[in-house]
């Protein structure tokens, strides 16, 4: 067992034994290869199921507000950023929260592996290599080859706030700072872009896994469920699907922490992140704002600063 897992378990054991928290929210081994699953440990006997590796793909911040009592949470960079936004928006109470921070090298894009080897029968991860046995064949990957797209552009792999840090910290690569993916989409013609989103939106089945996996989509009543006024019908078609996603992106403007939880949750492989990334870039360029990078900051739309770049304003 590696030291990080050991330290997570020991920390959890102590916190629970001393009654400092009622529950530890972390990950345990899932039922499918290369899948971890969120787990809720309520007593120190349960801590040995906790794990940490490149399969821990869910954003656990999603659970914090809905879980009663005092809780500890295993947080990677993006989970901690979501927690920071939730704190800024008064959705959670800092004193009820103990953040076990772990720096994250990224998570595995299973979909990419599955597309090549078919159903995954067995898999193992060691030394940055992933060996997979699939129904259509076996293959060995370097982790970097199958790293989730989100993690390739991650600027905050280290938790931005934490009560305890476990393991080493990670240096952020310079290329992560760029928005090459967004620029590629921006450089397409309108009709190419339209085609792209048509294709993506035609895959959506409106299961709302993206919304529910998102730590920042916490509205008591989401606009899609509101029937007076009725923003959307139950019609599952490209136009309505796009309206849903466009609405969601707008609601996440200056709030989305680019964790990619929505994209990974989507059973249909819709490129939801393309829209979110564009908005993230715009907020960065226009307001010089990155969401949830510190506990103290304010959401972009809640604050006015005369120093915003705001090059969209017509100035005299």
């Amino acid at each position, binding site marked *: 067992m590696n030291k990080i897992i050991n330290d997570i378990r020991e920390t959890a054991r102590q916190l629970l034994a001393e009654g400092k928290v009622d529950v530890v929210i972390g990950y345990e081994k899932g*039922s*499918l290869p290369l899948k971890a*699953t969120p787990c809720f440990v309520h007593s120190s006997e349960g801590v040995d199921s906790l794990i940490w590796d490149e399969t821990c793909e*869910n954003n656990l911040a999603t*659970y914090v507000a809905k879980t009663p009592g005092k809780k500890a949470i295993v947080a990677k960079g993006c989970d901690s950023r979501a927690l920071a936004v939730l704190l800024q928006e008064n959705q959670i109470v800092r004193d009820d929260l103990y953040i076990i921070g772990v720096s994250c090298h990224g998570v595995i894009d299973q979909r990419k592996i599955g597309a090549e080897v078919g*159903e995954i029968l067995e898999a193992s991860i060691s030394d940055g290599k992933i060996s997979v046995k699939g129904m259509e064949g076996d293959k060995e990957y370097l982790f970097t080859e199958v790293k989730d797209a989100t993690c390739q552009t991650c600027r905050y792999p280290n938790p931005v706030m934490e009560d305890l840090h476990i393991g080493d910290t990670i240096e952020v690569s310079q290329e992560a700072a760029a928005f090459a993916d967004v620029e590629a989409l921006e450089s397409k013609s309108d009709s190419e872009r339209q085609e792209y989103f048509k294709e993506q939106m035609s895959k959506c089945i409106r*299961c709302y*896994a993206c919304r529910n996996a998102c730590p920042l989509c916490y509205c008591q009543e989401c606009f899609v469920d509101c029937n007076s006024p009725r923003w959307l019908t139950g019609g*599952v078609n490209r136009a309505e699907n796009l309206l849903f996603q466009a609405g969601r992106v707008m609601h996440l403007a200056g709030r989305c922490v680019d964790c990619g939880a929505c994209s990974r*949750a989507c059973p249909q492989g819709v490129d939801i992140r393309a829209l979110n990334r564009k908005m993230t870039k715009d907020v960065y360029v226009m307001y010089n704002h990155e969401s949830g990078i510190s506990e103290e900051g304010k959401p972009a739309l809640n604050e006015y600063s005369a120093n915003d770049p705001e090059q969209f304003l017509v100035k005299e």
Partner: protein
Amino acid sequence: MKISKEKFGQAFDALVAEYQIIAPVSDANGIAFKGVKSFSEVKQDYLNSKLPPKAFFFPQHEKLMSYKKEGKDVTVKSELKVENTVLFGIRPCDAKGMQLLDMVFKNDQYTDPYYFERRDKSVIIGVACNKIAPTCFCSSFGLSPAGSEGSDIFLIDLGDSYDVEVITEKGKAVAARFEALSELSADEQALVDKIKDAETSSKVDVSTTTSKLDKMFNNPYWDTLQEKCIGCNVCSFSCPTCHCFDISEEVRKNEGTRVRTWDACMAPLFTLHGSGHNPRDNKKTRWRQRMMHKFNYFVHNNGSMSCVGCGRCIKGCPVNMDIRQVIDGANKAELVVE
């Protein structure tokens, strides 16, 4: 009896003139059941579709009727348009799933015309699973990867030909077009027997689940079970037997349509009353509903469990909630005095 794939393909292509044909095809997103015009478009080597074929009888969003008011005149129009349809390549779990849906849409008091117009005008050509995914567990329910239950015609893929079993009258009408049927060779018969004997390697014991659930309504099991669920619709929408729906009006000015849309016990509007009260207002009561409905209520009402072990919900769930583990957990849960 067997038919060569060449002859089968010819019969299939000839059916296009009379039937809308739905078959598995490979698209950007995996395998999907879609309309095809020729056998050459059909994907023959596939595990199962990502989404269940139930939508062909029970669409996700369906217009039940439309209406218009002009002055004092109101006109109401039926929106039901149904074609004779062949569904080809349906796996045994899904064929069984359709039989379970039949029980929902028809009972001693009511027959759902929308569902049955389509169902009655369709012919199911089932195809056995030669390859079994690790998430398939149909054998748990007395079903089998080569079970013909629910199919009108059942095929077993032998490479260059299909073993053919014609099961119902509806099947007979279609199979009448199959030409040059011949006997299986001894080797082929052995292969057929092998495929018929196969079981899923993944199985869960459901022998005591229903009676156990009888005593579990207030069990603390539900308190912890639901914790990691994020309450999306993936499990219900990908399930061949889930059938909850909502009926609503989509109205603009003086005209509108009455539509039926899929609902799911995890969705926020599920069982929400007009008053704002919801008897199932948390994930605990929703997950209990999901389990109870599939493995208890449905058994009491219809004599069968309403899970066929297709494994779609296991693959699709964003938090890896695995129904096999949930059943197992219920089997093992400690009973409390209710």
